[in-house]
């Protein structure tokens, strides 16, 4: 499947590609255009932050890119597969195997333990996951001692880390996260962001994250600024060439202050 994308003459493989995607909510008089003819790609092994004022269409972009929702117009290609022709089951199977998703909150099934939550995608796929694998995934996010706890027995940061572990357990082509630190304090946010940065650096994972926080965005290799359903601005880390694991040392990263300035400019212009 990836071969198609690999054949396209682009510098590095675009794991996710949106071509002229529009999303309109509602009907004629009250229609809201959340995405307006948007074209964007996310290359393998990169960490992208999507920013923009509230209502600019960030969540909508993520939902369309992840196959959680269907665009009104345009084409979405995930890991070489065009989502357009897929039916609901096909979409689900693709999501299950190739896409991970972390929401701002309510990520976990309350009735299941952390371990069961992490194992859920595999079990839905009909695989009986070895306990060791699941425990390793939990250990990866630093929660080896919490396997048997239910969501209401975990802190907010721990819950988000369980969610990340679950999103990664199927080794997806891309991980989407919609304000994963939105409900967390600074310290726990930093833990979750470090975790995301880590999987990009060590495993070459592709990550796309929506955030309002310039500090969070500074963990990314690339920042896309959206306004009114379009790309308004874009920043790339100095050391990033789009290579796998290409994030440079801290000095080569984007600076939160710079991002904040661009954001302010964008919001001022609106």
């Amino acid at each position: 499947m990836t071969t198609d994308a690999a054949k396209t003459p682009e510098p590095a493989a675009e794991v996710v590609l949106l071509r002229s995607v529009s999303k309109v909510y509602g009907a004629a008089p009250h229609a809201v255009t959340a995405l307006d003819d948007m074209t964007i790609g996310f290359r393998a092994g990169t960490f992208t932050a999507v920013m923009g004022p509230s209502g600019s269409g960030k969540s909508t972009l993520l939902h369309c890119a992840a196959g959680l929702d269907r665009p009104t117009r345009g084409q979405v290609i995930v890991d070489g597969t065009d989502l357009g022709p897929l039916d609901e089951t096909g979409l689900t199977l693709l999501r299950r195997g190739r896409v991970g998703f972390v929401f701002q909150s309510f990520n976990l099934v309350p009735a299941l333990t952390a371990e069961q939550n992490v194992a859920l995608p595999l079990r839905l796929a009909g695989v009986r996951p070895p306990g060791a694998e699941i425990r390793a995934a939990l250990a990866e996010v630093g929660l080896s001692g919490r396997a048997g706890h239910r969501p209401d027995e975990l802190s907010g940061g721990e819950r988000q880390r369980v969610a990340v572990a679950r999103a990664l357990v199927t080794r997806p082509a891309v991980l989407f996260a919609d304000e994963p630190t939105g409900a967390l304090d600074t310290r726990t946010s930093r833990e979750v962001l470090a975790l995301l940065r880590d999987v990009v650096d060590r495993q070459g994972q592709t990550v796309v994250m929506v955030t309002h926080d310039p500090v969070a965005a500074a963990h990314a290799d690339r920042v896309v600024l959206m306004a009114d359903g379009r790309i308004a601005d874009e920043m790339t880390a100095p050391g990033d060439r789009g290579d796998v694991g290409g994030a440079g040392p801290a000095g080569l990263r984007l600076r939160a202050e710079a991002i904040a300035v661009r954001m302010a400019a964008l919001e001022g212009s609106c």
Partner: protein
Amino acid sequence: MLSLDMVRGGRAGFAGAFVALFLGVALVSMTALVFTSAGPRVPARYAGTAVLVRAPAAVQADGSFLADRPWPPETVRLLTDRLKAVPGVVAAVPDRSFYAQPVIGGRPDPGRVEGRPWSSAALAPHRLVSGSPPSGDREVVVEHALGLAPGSAVTLLTAAGPVPYAVSGTADGPGLYLGDAAAARLSGGVRVIGLRTAPGADLAAVEAAARTAAGSLGEVLSGDARAALETKADARTRWIGTQVLTAMASLSGFAVVFVVASTFAFGVMRRRRDLGLLRAVGATPRQVRRMVRGEALAVGVAAALAGVAAGIALAPVFGDLLVAAGFEPPGFSVRITAWPPAAAFGGGLVVALLGTWSAARRAARTSPLEALREAGADRRPMTRARLLLGSAFTAAGIAVAVAVAGTRPEEIVTLALLAAMALTVGIALLAPAVLPPVVRALLWPPSRARGATWTLVREGSLAAIRRTASTTAPVLLTVGFAVLVTGMVQTTAGAFALGRTAVVRAEAVVVPADGVPGLSDAVVAAAGGTAGRVTGDTADGGAGSTAGGVPLPTTVHPDGMPPQAALGAAAWETGGSGGAPRAGTDSPGEAGRARKAGDLPQGREGSGGPGTVVVARWVAAERGWRAGDTIRLTFEDGRAEPLRVAAVAGDAPAAFLLPRDVVRAHDPSALTPEILLPGPAPGADRLGPLGARALGPAAYAASSRDEDDRLVWLFTLVLVGTAVGYTGVAVANTLFMAASGRVREFRVLRASGATPRQVLGVVAAESALVTVMGSLLGAAVALPALLGIRSGLSRRVGASVPLIVPWPAVLGVVGACLVLAVAAGVLSVLGAARRAR
């Protein structure tokens, strides 16, 4: 595997579905077990006789329990002779019975009202404990338990009056036994001949030979088939019991289907967010569907099994209650058979799965984004299918309610129930469309007040209108049932009372004393013979009264017809309207009926003299008889007589009107039900020893309804108790489920500054709102059916019947719902309200 995890973890949510199905299956399997046990039994008095022959029985109309046609005396002799000759038969014993009631300590014994010839004691068999068999005309053998020693004196009330007897012996079973000849004089005809067989006789051979001997004259019964010999009284009690059980089974069956289906569907709806999350994480629609159904199956099997066990345990208790209430004959016991519980189990499971069926389809279509959406806010509360189905049920319900008004009397109740059920389903389906205006109307004044509570309640109920509809449904059902059942019973009873009170124009009424089945001729003589106007049968809701003569009811057997009720009365007085025999002209029911000119004799000559009969118009029409024809009637003693039709009466109180002495001659055990007197009644000192008492008109109108009222009241209790009790539990159940699913929401409320009391206030107010709306809709659902019943009854009685709804009782049910709903809601969020996390 996956689904079972979710069941275990989501225990709270499934408890509701479990409880609904558990109680439902318990209720249904209990009712079904009792229902299937309610077959006829071999009467104890024939228990010791392997082979019996009975007179051929005609099929009677449903609810008619008149005595079957006895053999003519010659046939009895012929049959006994033939049967006696069968090898292995020692004796062929004709069984007869007559009215006899011992007076013990000055009171007629209510439990012993039947006398038999001593020879038939052997059929049970009952044997002598002490003394000797009765001989002569004035000796009796009594049950040993009565405590009378041989040689002591006892007074027996008979159809003639009190008669002194001497106890010759005591027997080890119930019954009063006279010598065969004495018994024969008091009895009517013979319907059963029992064969006493020699020890070791080949019963199959005896049976076959008896069949040949009897030919077409009699039906040979053996083994369980002997149950056909149960008394008509027991058959009638069982029939009433079957009516009760049928009504109960259909009402509670409907309640169970409704509650279980909606609870299971609601259980799925509550977890929309979880299901969305599963979809987002990678569950395919098919997997979600299968999971939801798997959960329903797991919960369903557990709950239905537990329910069946409870049903089996409770069935004997319920059976005993029915016997105590008089809905099943004494000796009734519940037989535990396999299929009723099995059917309840399977049915419960199917209903649970069907309830989840569309919910599972809906769940499978859940968008993965559902997990992200804020709770509440139903975007499409009414699907098109739901709208169509709801409208169809509502329309059908209204159509049936209209049809009730014009239907046959015996179908009124069935159709009314059907109408109410269809309307209940229709309105429950339409609730998401119907409720918003109701919420707005009800909460418009309070939500303009200062506090936030009512605004929160209003917006909360409107946003989650499907949840509001789900919690309203059980209240709707409960109140709808309560209004319908109590209103139906009261309106019907009121209509009958209307018919009855209209005829009481007497100064005094002589009625049997407590426990006495009827009045003897001695009472009639004491009350002044054939004095005054007299009531007849009042079973029709309109009463008949026959001018002149105290009517004596009996059963006659016209050729080619099932048994019919007949009344014997002395020669008619000439009434005010042209000398016609007037019958029952005072009741409103009769006034409404057209009277065809020419049916009644113009002169006085045909006034029911000897050798004549007056025939009810419907019988005459059915048989093509006209005044002047001669017809043949067979009487209670098995003898037939040709009678000239003196008149055809459009409003006769019975199928046939006969001279009183003719009835008495053929039916020695016939008893007079009551005597209406134009003047003062004889004193209690005279009536008391005769087993009678006198009442004023008011006391009469009240007392004559006592037994009926008691049964009707019990009937209502049973129905309301089971159906409404069950739905009441469903009210608590659903509100508990609804509130416990919203704990997160209430925490947010706490976090935004609401005090625990305010949170509980919101929950209590929502529960109250749901109860009020459910009650309004419930009343709305029941009213069309009640109006249908009213116009049906009005047509039948011929007068406008008032619609009686016992509002205090209904308000009691509403109050109970309110308490249940508020308590369930508040209890389930108590923990969440305290913590502000």
